[in-house]
């Protein structure tokens, strides 16, 4: 059974403009799927809709997680069931430390699983946190800083992956995680994702560029243009895109190229 399944998913903005126009795909554990598309193709809308952003309305189709229909579920419920979105632009929460935030989030997920309060033992939490921080080369000093408040672009992205590592989701969706990262940071971040993908987790990597896929090799590539998947294939498709771009499918970009 697929871990995450989109069935003919259609998503519109609050003003009714349809952005995602019927997308179907299925990601299993141990798999990395890449959704590649040009700017303005609706990639981030797809990511937000999967995560349950209230500003995007699912106008058709279904989202299933572990076979369960989560199309109508709130963002918190989806997260509790094991969905994780690494944001392209993570938000700052002034006054809330990374540590405090992470512990609260972990305990929220644990509570929903156990049905009662089941806070993570402090020693276990700290040991996990520092191990993951070290592995992702996140300065331990960041643990006591306010979440994303004054963080550099690279720090924000690393902390997104740190959150993922700590929350141990079933299904990770990464929205343009490679943007704004230098090559060293990209390697670390990609390494962090790769290590988590396995029998317990699958990943959907949403990206414009092939770059990140050099470090997280996808099992499947879906080319996403104007709200639709226009071609699918193996990792070789990403390389082809790197050479020739999206001109073949994208009328707008095609015009520019011509």
């Amino acid at each position: 059974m697929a871990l995450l399944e989109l069935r003919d998913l259609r998503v519109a903005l609050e003003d009714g403009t349809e952005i995602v126009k019927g997308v179907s795909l299925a990601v299993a554990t141990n798999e990395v799927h890449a959704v590649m598309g040009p700017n303005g193709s609706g990639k981030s809308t797809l990511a937000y809709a999967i995560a349950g952003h209230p500003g995007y309305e699912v106008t058709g189709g279904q989202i299933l997680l572990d076979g369960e229909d989560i199309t109508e579920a709130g963002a918190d419920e989806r997260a509790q069931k094991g969905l994780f979105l690494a944001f392209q632009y993570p938000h700052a929460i002034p006054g809330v430390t990374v540590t405090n935030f992470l512990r609260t989030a972990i305990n929220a997920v644990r509570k929903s699983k156990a049905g009662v309060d089941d806070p993570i033992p402090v020693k276990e939490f700290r040991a996990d946190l520092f191990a993951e921080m070290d592995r992702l080369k996140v300065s331990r000093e960041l643990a006591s800083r306010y979440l994303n408040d004054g963080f550099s672009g690279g720090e924000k992205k690393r902390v997104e992956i740190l959150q993922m590592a700590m929350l141990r989701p079933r299904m990770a969706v990464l929205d343009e995680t490679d943007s704004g990262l230098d090559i060293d940071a990209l390697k670390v971040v990609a390494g962090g994702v790769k290590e988590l993908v396995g029998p317990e987790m699958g990943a959907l990597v949403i990206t414009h560029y092939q770059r990140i896929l050099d470090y997280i090799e996808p099992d499947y590539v879906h080319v996403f243009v104007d709200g639709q998947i226009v071609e699918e294939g193996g990792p070789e498709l990403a390389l082809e895109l790197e050479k020739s771009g999206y001109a073949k499918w994208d009328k707008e970009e095609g015009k520019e190229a011509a």
Partner: protein
Amino acid sequence: MAQTETEIVEGIGSDYATKYGFSNPDEAKDYFFKSGRGLSHELVEAIAEHKNEPAWMRKFRHDSLENFLRRPLPMWGGDLTGIDFDNIYYYIKPTEKQAESWEDLPADIKDTWDKLGIPEAEKKYLAGVGAQYESEVVYHKLQADLEKKGVIFLDMDSGLREHEDLVKQYFGTIIPNNDNKFAALNSAVWSGGSFIYVPKGVRVELPLQAYFRINAENMGQFERTLILVDEDAYVHYVEGCTAPIYSSDSLHSAVVEIVVKKGGRCRYTTIQNWSNNVYNLVTKRAVAYEDATMEWVDGNLGSKLTMKYPAIWLMGEHAHGEVLSIAFAGAGQHQDAGGKCVHVAPNTTSVITSKSISKNGGRAGYRGLLEVAKGAKNAKSKVVCDALILDEDSRSDTYPYIRIDENEVDIGHEATVSKIGEEQLFYLMSRGLSEAEASAMVVSGFVEPITKELPLEYAVEMNRLIQLQMEGSVG
């Protein structure tokens, strides 16, 4: 640090509402002394007689009552017309004499206190506990090392009995009994509160704490606190207030006077969470002399109406004053809070930081005064007030009064108003937090510059109170 915090959270448990929303049904009958309702010279005399007070204090009480009766209700701030002065018990004394130790306390009071967690708190943190139960301090304990250092930490009634000269010298001098209507009322019928004296050069490292509770219907609390910090001495006084919920209106009107002498430092921390029918009208004022520092940390969460503006008069050169204020107003609540700093001497500095939150139609505001007297050259002051409004029905006001009679000054004022963003909430919810938890987290972060100044236990309590306030407020 994180470990300790979590251990405390776990220790407090999740039964907060039950824990703090109780009342003890059998208690009310068993009072040792209870005045009739309403206010009169006879009542004032009865209180003074009952406490066996010296003539000067009796006269002070009677004069104060005259001032109270003469003054009209303030027409600014909040709506005070709901207070029925004739329907309030002004004096209740629950037990015959002060208890020296935990074992001496009457069983029903012990039971109430067990629910508040006093003994555990004491073991962990307290250097001494003075707690107000009804109008009288019933339990009081001073640790041996404080006594050795010459620190006095008594309830105000004992302070008057045992240190009359010292009390007489300062009582009513920082806040005169004609200062305002409610200070006059307190001066007439005061009972309980703390008296603290810290001798020259003595630093009290652990905070001195007092727990306050109102636990009788229609009962006023008029506690009176006087803190004297001698030269180069230091003390941190902490009061936390929780009240059970009653249906009829209740009045709390305290007076706190503080003197910080040359080079001394005093911090006074309050977290109050009166039930939503309490009028909380408190006058707090401190004077700080040369090189002295005075800090008010003031958190106002409960009550129907709070009007409270802790003040600092900077009387000596290089004196420094700081006011940190949090106000949280929910449905039916009006928090009119803030601070006042008056620069009298040159080279004095002050900072007022106010954070107000309003939700469910609540109204929270900042009202502050910054005054620089002629001759207070190089006075430097900064006022920052931030408001967070959680929904369309709620309201925030800012009234920053500034009076400057000196040219060479450096004054800054910043104010922001913000709302919780949908994107911020979504970000937190996408990590598994419910909407209420996510909102509470944003609010906790908003007030963090102030909660981080609280003793750990109180910071935890403050965050818990915010969580409670946020539950059911959204979605």
